[in-house]
């Protein structure tokens, strides 16, 4: 079935089988393997992408459903000259990853969180990131990273807010 959607601002047209998930369409058909597949049934959050600005599990959507939508994946985070997004910088800086498998989903969830709630405090960050499972870090570094990225994106020179 023919579908056309945009991925990270680029228009793509594909012929996909209806049962192909959006995650597989991104990985196999678009070559964007940054979106990771963990559980493939909507539990682990590794495949989280933004669809029309809203976070979605790419394993729970079919590629055909993205027709006409605007999809943002982890590949869309980097700057024009390949520079890391403040969230990616913060994950490196604060040990927000170890093996890195969950990281793309973590980044996309965090991106949406900081987009909708730029001043999110640690409790909110914990709550909002709870849909993404990490088996390496124990989450502490992830919460630190999202908090620091929030401060950086706010241009807050004093570092993380105390809220």
């Amino acid at each position, binding site marked *: 079935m023919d579908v056309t959607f945009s991925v990270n601002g680029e228009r793509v047209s594909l012929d996909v089988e*209806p*049962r192909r998930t959006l995650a597989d369409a991104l990985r196999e058909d678009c070559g964007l393997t940054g979106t990771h597949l963990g559980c493939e*049934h909507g539990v682990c959050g590794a495949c989280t992408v933004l669809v029309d600005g809203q976070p*979605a599990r790419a*394993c729970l959507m079919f590629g055909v459903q993205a027709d006409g939508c605007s999809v943002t994946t982890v590949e869309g985070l980097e700057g024009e000259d390949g520079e890391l997004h403040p969230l990616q910088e913060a994950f490196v800086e604060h040990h927000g990853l170890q093996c890195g498998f969950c990281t793309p989903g973590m980044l996309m969830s965090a991106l949406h969180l900081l987009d909708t709630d730029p001043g999110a405090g640690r409790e909110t960050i914990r709550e909002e990131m709870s*849909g993404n499972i990490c088996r390496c870090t124990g989450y502490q570094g992830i919460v630190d990273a999202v908090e620091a990225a929030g401060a950086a994106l706010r241009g807050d020179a004093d570092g993380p807010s105390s809220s």
Partner: protein
Amino acid sequence: MKCAPFDYVRAGSVEEVVKVLAGSDGDGKILAGGQSLVPVLALRMARPSVLVDVNRIPGLGAIRPVDGAVEVGALARHSALVAQTHHPLLAEAATWIGHTAIRSRGTAGGSIAHADPSAELPVVAVGTGATVSVAGPEGVRTTTAEELFVSALVTSLGEDEMITSIRFPQPERWGFAEFARRHGDFALVMALVAEVDGAVRVTIGGVGAVPARAAEAEQVLAAGGTAREAAAAAAAGIEPTADLHGSVPFRRAMAAEMVRRACARAGID
């Protein structure tokens, strides 16, 4: 972990959905938010031959107040339920559904049709005496939430029928309480105490095949009993089963505690 093949139909109207379902010999499924259906397909616990995608049907996602109630379109996302201010109980209950990425896709109609007894919206539907509009080949009929839920994941919907909206009455006062191992997980037990049309309704989810009214607890409260007495009556009236997540005595104790908390939040001591 990949779904079995299926034919995909992107429906443009409710009439088209009904027509496709009617023509699929009971082997068609409605695809709304997909947050429960797609895992079932991925695990190959179901292999429908046709999926009818209802996400593009115009006008099905509206949430609007209508005399003493709020009518929620079948395609209203859980995130929209959280954000709306017409029905505070619905907003509160919806915050307990899954995680952000699930709430942004999952729909009210899908949650009701899926009929998971541990899900929040079925409990709110039974607890407020909601009515459900159902479209089928003969037109639109109205049923009650209590008539809709037959057993775990089983409803009285026909194979060629589709929920189009749910009308949730506005309770005069209410309290909602849920216990899950982690926020976002399905509830081990949840309780809703809601006064609707002057009668206090006590509804428990997660401990039986369907969200159920706790008649004994309601009688205790109607007779002027305390929240603790109602909680004890509610816990005595359920028959939970043990699993990995909790024993029978634990679930009974949690049911009592959630009813007590829901009473307290509704202003009943």
